[in-house]
């Protein structure tokens, strides 16, 4: 059976095509202002990679913030359900899923069947997401993809305000003026987001195995900070941004 999943994220749209549970095509595109158009484009790219036509897709499910506007879909599931589904398929022993995207951080606890038991999302004054690392990389004048590796070279933990992102940004500016090495600041930035994400995870009560997905999972500096803050190992799948769409595509197989 061939199914597809579309994750209509606020920043990027991801499409995954599955045949008998295996990914045969995927694509990611910036959502922009015309998200439906972007979704169609991503769909076309994923189909091309899969070497099939649109008619061969039997069923499509959508997830993500903009799922109501997803084209070509017969079914919609929440991001939380999509994440849990996708992770459970790859890691049957996963009991905690942490998803850190551009605009949203969430923690999900699930059982051995992959059923969602509890979830926690970003709140005011308790938020951590990718947008923060982007802002910080600009403040540090480094490329976003260099931020992670740079932070791993640091050997100094500098506590950064864990509460308000605006306050934290002030602190980065101060640290720069005090000539603090950039790698130490980079590490502090990752530690700060990790701290907020761990706060979120503690709300649902995390237990191993812990799986991290979403765009920020690509950031090795953040993964390191998260592991230290959780005091346990964190698994990161290949293509962590696609797991939501993957979960949606799996849901589509069940109809």
């Amino acid at each position, binding site marked *: 059976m061939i199914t597809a999943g579309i994750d209509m994220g606020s920043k990027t749209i991801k499409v995954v095509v599955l045949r008998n549970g295996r990914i045969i095509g995927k694509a990611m595109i910036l959502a922009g202002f015309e998200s439906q158009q972007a979704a169609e484009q991503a769909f076309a790219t994923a189909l091309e990679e899969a070497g099939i036509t649109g008619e061969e897709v039997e069923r499509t499910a959508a997830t993500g913030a903009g799922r109501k506007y997803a084209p070509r879909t017969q079914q919609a599931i929440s991001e939380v359900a999509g994440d849990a589904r996708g992770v459970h398929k790859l890691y049957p022993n996963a009991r905690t899923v942490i998803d850190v995207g551009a605009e949203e951080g969430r923690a999900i606890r699930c059982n051995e069947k992959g059923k969602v038991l509890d979830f926690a999302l970003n709140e005011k004054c308790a938020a951590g997401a990718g947008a923060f690392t982007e802002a910080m990389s600009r403040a540090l004048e480094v490329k976003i993809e260099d931020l992670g590796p740079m932070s791993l070279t640091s050997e100094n933990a500098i506590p950064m305000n864990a509460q308000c992102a605006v306050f934290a940004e002030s602190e980065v500016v*101060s640290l720069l003026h005090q000539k603090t090495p950039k790698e130490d600041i980079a590490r502090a930035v990752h530690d700060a987001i990790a701290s907020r994400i761990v706060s979120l995870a503690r709300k649902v009560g995390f237990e191993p195995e812990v799986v991290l997905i979403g765009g920020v999972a690509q950031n090795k500096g953040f993964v390191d900070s998260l592991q230290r803050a959780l005091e346990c190992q964190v698994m990161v799948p290949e293509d962590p941004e696609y797991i939501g769409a993957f979960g949606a595509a799996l849901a589509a197989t069940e109809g």
Partner: protein
Amino acid sequence: MFGQFRQWEQNRHDYAQAWKERTGGKVMGYFCTYVPEEILHAAGVLPVRILGSHEPQDVTEPHIFGMFCPFCRDCLAQGLKGRYDYLDGIMIAQSCLHIRQAFTSWQKHLPTEFSYYLCMPHHVQSPRALPYLTGELADFRTAVEEWTGKAVTDANLDEAIEVYNENRRLMHAAYDLRKGDAPPITGEEAMEMVISSQMTDKAEHNQELKRILGELADRGNSRDVGARLMIIGSEDDDIEFINMVESCGATFVVDEHCTGTRYFWNEVQPREDRLEAIAARYIDRVPCPTKDWMDRKRIPHILELAEEWKVDGAIVMQQKFCDPHELDNPAIREALHEQGIESLFLEFDVTVPVGQFQTRVEAFLEMLSGEDLFD
């Protein structure tokens, strides 16, 4: 010279544990300065105020909603991180809503052999508060006696009252020295002095105070005093901040906040009924905003302090989200302004952006000195 106070403040847990070992006594962690410490001291208990550690943490989110002040969350974090495992008891005297959550979460998740919630009245301006609190203190004393297994007699209370009153007098004496043109104590040193008093045996603290007062008589002041500032506000033990301000060409000469003069300003006046005497002290003391109604008593007191200590300007600070102070600050700043004292308003978190605050403080100090030119 103030090294001992700093040492106690920075090693508060070591101090308390050593005290326990030395005396075999019990240690009570408390959450608000309305706690009647005299009764605890009379029972042979060491009261230690629970304060935060100014480190970002991720453990309190499941327990306290993030919109409550950073201070109460920082306090709970200390417990959750096991730093206060040596406490035999915890207590709170009710004042604000925020800090009481640190107490109630602690009660459930970090149970101690004794815990107590004292219903300290809020209507301190009513004559009914005194008999009420006296009755509550009698119940409290009984509970403490049951806990420690020994009676708390009038003689015990007299001794405790004297030790505490002496501590207050001595700290007053130190503060009085700051009235002069060349205060021999910085605001940072004064803060170390007061905070350390909240976590040590008062008799020991008195000894150190006497020693210091003796030495201060000879200590000149080679520091350039700069602008004479007052700091007003909520709980504040952010020594780093005080240090930063005083390095910008200013000196804190006096304060009116929870970890400063509000703690020690008033003595217990003697009465036949010792519990009534203690109750009267806590009712009549400089109030926390939660108890400063319907008249605003803090304002004339602040203006008096500002006058006696010849204050040039004020920093009005509060923990982020602190409603009680937010309800007072507009009126306080207005009253100061009418007296010709300008104020800088700052919100504190667990850590403060020292660099950004420095910019604001420097601008404020410039503004203050600019005014002098036109006097």
